[in-house]
């Protein structure tokens, strides 16, 4: 069912890997801790299945989303579980669940997401710019669905590049999703020559 070859998916995973490497450096300097990255996974699946793949749709999560404008439109979504949100806010010295908590997560999202988008743009030689971040704390399914819905016009297949940033010694991680527009994926692959 995948419309991408294994080589193409490998190339996309590699892009995500380098992007999240840059993002982890940004997060690390923000938190003053070292940050590891997991090997990214690339999912290509019908939109209907995408939400359940990421996690229990009714579990609570905080999402920070940045739009990508420019030659390859898309969205970057950072997901925090309530526990991760609390630990992350603790590292920054603010209270999770408060107004400051959400704005701290939004700032993490902004810095991490923007560095990811910039790294991506440099690698594929495209002008990409992040839009200002927006945050919501709600059901995981709702957050993922709303981000996918904005990108759903072109096709029924979702491509998700998923990587985790893990804060060393804190058992705390951020899940990182890149959701490109469908046309954008083809452009990206073309630039990579695969």
């Amino acid at each position: 069912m995948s419309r991408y070859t294994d080589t193409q998916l490998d190339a996309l995973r590699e892009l995500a890997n380098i992007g999240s490497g840059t993002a982890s450096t940004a997060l690390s300097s923000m938190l003053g801790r070292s940050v590891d990255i997991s090997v990214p996974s690339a999912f290509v699946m019908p939109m209907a299945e995408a939400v359940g793949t990421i996690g229990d749709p009714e579990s609570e999560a905080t999402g920070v989303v940045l739009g990508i404008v420019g030659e390859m439109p898309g969205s970057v979504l950072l997901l925090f579980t309530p526990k991760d949100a609390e630990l992350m806010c603790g590292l920054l010295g603010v209270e999770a669940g408060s107004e400051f908590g959400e704005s701290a997560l939004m700032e993490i999202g902004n810095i991490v997401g923007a560095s990811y988008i910039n790294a991506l743009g440099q690698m594929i030689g495209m002008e990409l710019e992040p839009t200002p971040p927006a945050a919501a704390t709600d059901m995981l399914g709702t957050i993922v669905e709303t981000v996918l819905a904005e990108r759903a016009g072109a096709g029924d297949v979702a491509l998700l590049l998923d990587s985790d940033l893990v804060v060393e010694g804190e058992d705390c991680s951020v899940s990182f999703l890149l959701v490109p527009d469908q046309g954008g994926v083809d452009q990206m692959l073309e630039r990579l020559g695969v």
Partner: protein
Amino acid sequence: MAETMVRMGELAASAVAGDVLVSLGLGSCIGLALLDRRAGVAGLAHVVLPASGGNAAPGSWKFADLAVPELIDRVVKFGARRPMLEAVLVGGASMFSVSKSSLEVGQRNEAAVRELLRAARINVIATETGGSRGRTIRVYVGSHKVTVREAGGVEKVLVAGATRLAA
């Protein structure tokens, strides 16, 4: 009791009392339930976007302009009578307060679904739309109870589950 998940861009109908049709965590999407409370038939569509612009893949029901007529056809096939159909709308929220486009998607979805129902002469008997919270809709086939639940909240009855109305 069988729960049927109606995921993004999917739709389902049933005439089996005890079946439950569910869409989890609706954000900017619309959960559209159609009921014929006398015939004991119900359907649910999970609408993602307002209009297809005429270029959707066959079998894709994510667009309101394709999903609404298809859902009407499905419930009629299960024995619903068209003039008896009633609608319930849940969702259409703007999840990310700063993101203008998602606000528009939620509102445009609701407007599109309402317009299509009006054109099909189907009354909307209950709604829980707009705002900024995600919602789960459950449609109980047979009793025709329709409930909605927000994150961390309790299941709230939107349409009271009556025993089947006398014909």
